């Protein structure tokens, strides 16, 4: 950051202590004003975040120790909501589906995204078009993407092209929309379709800051492309990769619309479990809220693991 406080004395060489002191006063006055203004300018944004994120979050944590029925007074029950939640078989399926979905979709997107980023980092004919198409699926609402892919996964109808291809290849011959496991796998594919290109663009940005001469120097030393990838590209793209990875993992961990729509409301994820408790069944409100707190705490745990173990910085 450059010096932003420039008093009228700028440019003149202060010759004595008095001038210096005077300059400092002008400077401090400007800085004080500037500081006050800065606080005024950021206040609305900070208030929004505290009021809509922090206060409800603390309220949710408090509520998770209460037995709550909407529009009625609540009573303190300690950890009972969490105990009930952990014993609920719906919560188990939610946890399993979410874990499987997160691990598979993020790994698939990372590997495929890296391959595409490496390809796009070369200069070739049609590169602009390839890059532009990468953003097309990213802009789709996940709920709409799920509707589209649900049509393509329909069994034995004209629109169900993907189901047809999978069936005729013999990989999976049962109706895909009829099994939870198949649906989670299908959701992984849809998520990969929607997000891999974006992941590739993030990684590509990381690749493009690697100076070319590093590669040239290693080539002179006789390094193969394979060695270059493992010894130069990967270590240097690591910071960009880890930010993208953390972001995607937390995003996948709170998956809601994709599974909810793909499974026609029947497929469970942690967020779907919360939604069902909060909106659909008023009796399970407390369980749903406890699961919401669980999603929050587990997200923090995931972020901490990424930051500590893999050495990335989440913010800034």
């Amino acid at each position, binding site marked *: 950051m450059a010096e932003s406080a420039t008093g009228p004395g700028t440019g003149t060489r202060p010759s004595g202590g008095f001038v210096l002191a005077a300059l400092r006063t002008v400077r401090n006055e400007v800085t004080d004003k500037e500081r006050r203004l800065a606080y005024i300018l950021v206040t609305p944004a900070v208030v929004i975040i505290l009021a809509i994120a922090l206060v409800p979050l603390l309220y949710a944590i408090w509520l998770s120790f209460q037995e709550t029925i909407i529009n009625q007074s609540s009573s303190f029950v300690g950890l009972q909501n969490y105990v009930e939640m952990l014993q609920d078989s719906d919560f188990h399926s939610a946890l399993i589906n979410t874990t499987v979905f997160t691990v598979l979709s993020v790994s698939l997107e990372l590997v495929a995204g890296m391959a595409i980023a490496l390809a796009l980092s070369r200069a070739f004919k049609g590169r602009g078009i390839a890059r532009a198409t990468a953003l097309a699926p990213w802009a789709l609402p996940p709920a709409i993407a799920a509707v589209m892919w649900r049509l393509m996964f329909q069994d034995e109808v004209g629109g169900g092209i993907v189901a047809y291809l999978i069936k005729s290849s013999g990989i999976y011959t049962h109706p895909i929309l009829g099994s939870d496991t198949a649906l989670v796998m299908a959701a992984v594919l849809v998520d990969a379709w929607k997000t891999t290109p974006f992941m590739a663009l993030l990684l590509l940005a990381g690749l493009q800051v690697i100076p070319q001469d590093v590669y040239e120097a290693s080539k002179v030393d006789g390094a193969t492309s394979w060695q270059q990838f493992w010894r130069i590209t990967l270590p240097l793209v690591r910071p960009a990769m880890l930010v993208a990875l953390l972001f995607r993992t937390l995003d996948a961990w709170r998956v809601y619309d994709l599974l909810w729509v793909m499974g026609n409301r029947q497929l469970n994820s942690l967020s779907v479990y*919360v939604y069902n408790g909060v909106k659909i069944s008023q009796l399970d409100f407390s369980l749903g809220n406890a699961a919401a707190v669980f999603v929050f705490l587990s997200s923090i745990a995931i972020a901490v693991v990424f930051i500590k173990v893999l050495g990335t910085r989440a913010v800034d």
Partner: protein
Amino acid sequence: MGGEFETRWGKIVFYTLIILFVLMTVSPLLWMAKLALVSQTELDAYPPRILPQSLELTSFETIFGDNRFRSGLINSVIIAGVTTVICLSVGSIAAYALARLKFGLRGPVLSTILAVAFFPAVAIIAPLFLQFSNWGIVNTYQAMIIPDVLFALPLTVYLLVAYFRELPLDIEEAAKVDGAGPMQTFFRVTLPLSIPGVVTTGLLCFIFAATEFLFANTFAFDPSTQPVTVIIPQFATEYRTNYGAQAAASMVVTVPLTILVLAFQRRIVSGLTAGAVK
């Protein structure tokens, strides 16, 4: 890893990969366009045929004849539009302070705002639901705009801070030397110079709010306020076997968003990836 291809095989593998990538990205969209434009007979025929055999607009007539779909589109535009305006107003001044002014809590404030990007939305739907019920604003636009603003704001601030920082400092310094205060400098110099950045940020904000689903599905109960993202998945039940109508509805949302994103793709990519490579 630029440069020439080492072998002919390398080149072949390379182009195959690229073509496969483009095909896989685009073909589901083309297939939806096909489903939206062919006859019901063709939609029912099995096995599916790649090239369309018929061409009609019945599916589009069906969905545009549906009141809920039309009001869903309008609701989406209202919710996303208001969210964008609020985020740009609040976010641009905050971003200016964070990018250009010096104050003690600069770091903590920036971290707090950006941390929300990692915050799971689902964590706060239960308390918001209770609060909105108490206030009697469930099933109103506000119930969706309030949480949408929360999650679009970090994106706005992040993009605008990056953008303001890229502006050459000397123009702003010159304004200051001429006696302009920081606010004048912001409104007369920084903001006009940042129009492209502000437009891109607004567009991304709009896309974010228009694609939001969790809050909309939780806080809106009926078609009077439900955005189109909530309406279309309901069509899977309403128009059970009318696959054409479902595909047409998806296309109506997809095509404008895709065009917007392609038109602004260069700016979007540079904006979104600015922080990843720092």
